[in-house]
């Protein structure tokens, strides 16, 4: 069915989940406020009405048990889609991701598959403060057996959600609160955005910019500004942080000879560190400048607006960094 009217990020996720629930009776949603209230930010609105409370399950506030329930249910043949709200709360379920979900398939010699999706939100830019604003994808990207996707706009948000639900592995789906109202015209019909494949958003020749999650929007602004100044940047949206699509990045670096990575998470131990290290290991000879990173500093995110603005990477900081490399 064609969706002519532009759809926002929230509804794109909602449509992705609902379409998969229509297609596969083993798919259900579970978590705090996901059923009757329709999600803390309305992402699962209407699901309980169409599919009933058996497939839209409200739970107590028990993050570990929610993710544990998903592991057990997935091992028993269902396809849970859980919500953990703000990504900070996922710290209460790291055990279930690290010791259980990511290991079960391998550890049991392939006896079970664990097809589950857990949604969590990064919320930088809202003044939500130290307990509601963190970007922890780097922790999870370091877990073999767990896929981690970070959509950046409504089209890939829907496509990645559908791919995640169909995937036979546990998938952490990280969505940016700051982009919820972003609207786009959607492709017609059933489609997925493949997991593990980066998107070359714009081709260029002078520098490669690799963005993660919400930073694609900042990067698009930066690319426009750089174009005005005569710098032709290539923009790659990573979309998946495990497994990393390094081939796309290597090809780009071979063409532009310069690389900047931008993400909302901290620079120290962030995904950008892994990308930079892999690039110097594999395509060192093609580099004309050190690999640069634009990311959060090694401190805590503040609720205070001026401090938060200083903390978060943005288009302006990216433009400045690119000019250092190219200039």
């Amino acid at each position, binding site marked *: 069915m064609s969706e002519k009217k532009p759809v926002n990020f929230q509804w794109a996720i909602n449509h992705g989940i609902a379409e998969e629930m229509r297609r596969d009776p083993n798919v259900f949603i579970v978590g705090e406020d996901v059923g009757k209230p329709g999600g803390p930010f309305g992402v699962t609105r209407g699901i309980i009405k169409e599919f009933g409370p058996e497939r839209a399950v409200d739970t*107590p506030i028990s993050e*570990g048990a929610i993710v*544990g329930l*998903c592991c057990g249910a997935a091992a*028993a043949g269902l396809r*849970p889609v859980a919500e953990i709200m703000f990504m900070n709360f996922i710290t209460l379920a790291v055990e279930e991701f690290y010791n259980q979900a990511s290991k*079960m*398939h391998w550890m049991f010699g392939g006896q079970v598959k664990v097809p589950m999706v857990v949604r969590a939100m990064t919320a930088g830019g809202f003044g939500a403060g130290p307990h509601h604003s963190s970007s922890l994808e780097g922790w999870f990207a370091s877990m*073999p057996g767990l896929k981690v996707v970070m959509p950046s706009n409504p089209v890939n948000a829907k496509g990645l959600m559908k791919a995640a639900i169909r995937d036979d592995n546990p998938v952490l789906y990280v969505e940016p609160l700051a982009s919820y109202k972003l609207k786009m015209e959607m492709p017609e019909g059933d489609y997925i955005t493949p997991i593990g494949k980066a998107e070359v958003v714009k081709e260029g020749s002078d520098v490669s910019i690799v963005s993660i999650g919400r930073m694609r929007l900042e990067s698009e602004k930066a690319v426009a500004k750089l174009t005005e100044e005569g710098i032709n940047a290539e923009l790659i949206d990573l979309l998946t942080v495990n497994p990393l699509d390094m081939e796309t990045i290597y090809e780009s670096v071979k063409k532009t000879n310069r690389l900047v990575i931008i993400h909302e998470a901290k620079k120290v131990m962030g995904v950008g560190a892994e990308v930079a290290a892999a690039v110097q290991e594999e395509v060192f000879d093609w580099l004309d400048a050190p690999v640069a990173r634009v990311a959060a500093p090694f401190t805590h995110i503040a609720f205070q607006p001026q401090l938060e603005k200083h903390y978060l990477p943005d288009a302006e900081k990216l433009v400045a960094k690119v000019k250092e490399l190219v200039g």
Partner: protein
Amino acid sequence: MKLNKDLKIDLYKRMVRIRTFEDNTTTIFAGGEMPGFLHLSQGEEAVAVGTCANLELEDAIFTTHRGHGCIIAKGADLKPMMAELFGRIDGCCKGRAGSMHFADVKTGCMGSNGVVGEGMRLAIGTAFAQKYKKTKNVTAVYFGEGATGTGAFHESFNMAATLNLPVIFVCSINLYAQMTHKSVHIAIENVADRAPSYGAPGVTIDGNDVELVYEEAVKAVKHTRAGKGPYLIECKTYRHHGHFEGDPCNYRPEGELEEWLKKDPVVLYEKKLKKEGVLDDKQIKALKDAAQKEVDEAVELARKSPQPEVEELYRGIFA
């Protein structure tokens, strides 16, 4: 409840099978042939057998790091199980899991766990699936008194109750959580007292009396299969060996083990069945010999099975 003769023999046989498997494992491990850590459950066989004898193949169980007893009671084949303990490719987890992370999914053994309490969070998941698919199956999850101090116990019991899930919580009170006495872990006498606070029934029983455990498990299985939500059985028992093989057990008061050995569930039941005329010495010997033969065959196969190639480390990380 009157248990028939065949059932009594079945309960005894299952206990002997577990005891034989684990006693042999003790010797083999001490000889240095088995890698990793080993946590054994001699003394707790009645808990495993009394509960699992009530479960169907399709019912699920989750076990602790001390899980051999429940896994054997549930019906796992000893051959791939022993090969797994040896870390060999014919192990049911291809030698990747060992004793502590063992699973045999086709018999409903959904996983032992190296993290105390964690089986409970997974158990609500299989129970959710059993209910979602409208089966009459149930999930039993095993844990000790130490696990009742984890958030996993509270979260899982509460969620099993709020979502009305078919979970049987089986708590083995074996007096020590790791190396520390029960009194350090809980301030109340009976864990079962906690069940009503979640809105579920809970009973405390002598965990060394296999028939008593069986009878209580009948009630628990009936309750959970009927869709009435979770149920807790607390079994008072004792761990004959240390926390792990090689543990010097210097924390146990003198004479404590000897007192409990007098209440050894396998010995007690053997005496009872002899007294009742269900089994005689000859039949008992035959059952023990059969168990030993089965274990010997499993050990032989495990020793012949190859070590996994290093490529196995990289195979099947993703499904």
